[in-house]
């Protein structure tokens, strides 16, 4: 955004390196002086929080691999060994297991922030779409990681999710055997999941780099959703937002660590403390909480292929969001109708999560169908329609005016 700033460095070594690789000027321009809207609120800190969680997952993951054995006869025991024998193994493992949940919490809040303030709209479409790719890669990583401890839920989760591909006509079954490396989920499956679970976080890191690059080309959106017009509207990223992000990260870690130390198994399933048994399916298979809304959509359709298509469509639809919502006003602050439907979508998503956690019986079935239908209506009908009929509230002329009119400084 700021282009190539020309900096004069005093240190001769820095000058020597700078002339050959301009890394110091890029760091200073992008990570310190980067002009950032002055009105960002705490919802904007969740991007930094999510990035911190990715780093935590990579660090704890690298340590866990030093003690884990990816083989069906040893995986479960090696995880128990980490819990009981390895020095601080329990801490590293619970940081990693709960870290996945808190990574998703941060990313879900980050995504809903984008939805509320219209951060997916021009010129941030590519930024948003890379974000959806990050979300997809995260889901694949989390799913494969959950299989590695080789407990009952690990095993049957792997069976159910890989079987989703058998719904594809004609080539479905060969694809599933190809994924398994056998006729059922077994050792070859575990080993390739381990390999990919180690690879994908680095793919994620690369995608995050692209995400931040795209952000630094177009600049931050902000709670008022209006473009930066002058230098008055901005603050340098450092120290204003480095410190704000750091403060938010510390508060977030307080909650994360409260789970790690006081209730580390709360977000998991007791049945995963039993070793995988390919002959017995547990009475109630549920994915981790962060997949529950999608699991509810899968089960809402009484047809195998239909359910799989609906589930994948619920994420693919996000790629088209910038063109489904045609309203030129970004922030829900100035869109009273959109604000109402946004909160309805939040409630719908949470409700789908509750439906996904319940056995597919009784009134949960129609409830799941209604909630799934609403999810698609929101994106395919409500958003295009709102951009036609909604009358936005008057907008302030600039970020500075918006801040000052609210008594800020």
């Amino acid at each position: 955004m700021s282009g190539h700033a020309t900096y004069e460095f005093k240190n001769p070594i820095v000058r020597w390196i700078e002339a050959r690789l301009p890394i110091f000027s890029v760091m200073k321009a992008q990570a310190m002086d980067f002009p950032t809207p002055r009105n960002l609120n705490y919802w904007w800190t969740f991007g930094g929080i999510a990035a911190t969680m990715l780093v935590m997952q990579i660090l704890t993951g690298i340590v866990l691999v030093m003690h884990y054995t990816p083989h069906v006869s040893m995986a479960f025991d090696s995880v128990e060994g980490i819990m009981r024998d390895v020095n601080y193994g329990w801490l590293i493992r619970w940081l990693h297991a709960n870290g996945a949940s808190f990574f998703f919490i941060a990313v879900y809040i980050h995504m809903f922030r984008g939805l509320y303030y219209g951060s997916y709209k021009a010129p941030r479409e590519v930024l948003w779409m890379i974000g959806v790719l990050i979300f997809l890669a995260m889901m694949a990583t989390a799913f494969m990681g959950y299989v590695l401890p080789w407990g009952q839920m690990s095993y049957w989760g792997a069976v159910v999710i890989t079987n989703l591909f058998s719904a594809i006509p004609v080539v479905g079954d060969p694809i599933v055997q190809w994924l398994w490396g056998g006729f059922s989920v077994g050792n070859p499956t575990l080993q390739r999941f381990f390999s990919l679970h180690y690879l994908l976080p680095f793919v994620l890191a690369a995608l995050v780099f692209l995400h931040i690059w795209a952000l630094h080309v177009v600049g931050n959106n902000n709670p008022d959703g209006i473009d930066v017009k002058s230098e008055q509207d901005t603050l340098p990223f450092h120290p204003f937002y480095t410190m704000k992000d750091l403060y938010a990260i510390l508060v977030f870690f307080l909650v994360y660590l409260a789970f790690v130390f006081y209730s580390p198994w709360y977000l998991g399933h007791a049945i995963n403390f039993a070793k995988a048994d390919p002959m017995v399916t547990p009475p109630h298979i549920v994915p981790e909480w962060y997949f529950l809304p999608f699991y509810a959509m899968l089960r809402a359709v009484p047809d195998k292929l239909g359910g799989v298509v609906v589930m994948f469509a619920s994420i693919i639809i996000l790629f088209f969001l910038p063109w489904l919502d045609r309203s030129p006003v970004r922030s829900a602050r100035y869109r009273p109708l959109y604000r109402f439907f946004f909160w309805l979508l939040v409630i719908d998503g949470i409700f789908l999560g509750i439906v996904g956690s319940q056995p597919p019986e009784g009134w949960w079935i129609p409830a799941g169908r209604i909630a799934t239908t609403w999810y698609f209506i929101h994106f395919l009908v409500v958003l295009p329609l709102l951009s036609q009929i909604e009358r936005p509230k008057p907008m302030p002329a600039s970020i500075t005016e918006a801040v000052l009119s609210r008594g800020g400084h």
Partner: protein
Amino acid sequence: MTTFIDQEASRRDFLFIATGTVGAAGTALALWPFIDQMNPDASVLALASTEFDMAPLAEGQGVTIKWRGKPVFIRHRTKEEIEKAKKTPLAELKDPVARNANLPPDAPATDENRVKDATGKVNEKYLVQIGICTHLGCVPLGEAGEYHGWFCPCHGSVYDTAGRIRKGPAPRNLDIPPYKYVSDTKIVIG
């Protein structure tokens, strides 16, 4: 100068296209070993057949054995179960095909076709089927569900006493593995 480039261009174009084609085709071909290595390997394919003697099974008793890492249900069905399965009109079935690996793929899902082995032998007492729900691969529970056949706890698919899908999201009847009788009660699966 221009004519020189024009003359050279056709020969260069040819070389560019030829090189690009060989490069692209070579890369595409080199990709195959990296894809195919994920398919079931020789040791997995070698574990192909299992023998089982059904004589010790009492009426109404069932066992689950392992074949190719998958559960196989072998059930000695009661008279009522067989009667019920036989009386069901084919029109009521969600999946009208037998799904028996020993029969042609379009064989109708009659009770007889569900218990036929590769040689055409029928012993209606013994039902042999792969114990994997055709929805998303869970192991259904026996003697359960509305039709007292099998019930899948994962997503609620209901199978009758011949292992045919009657309700729920599963698209197909439980699969019958390839098997044949080697004596009156002994079978070889695979």
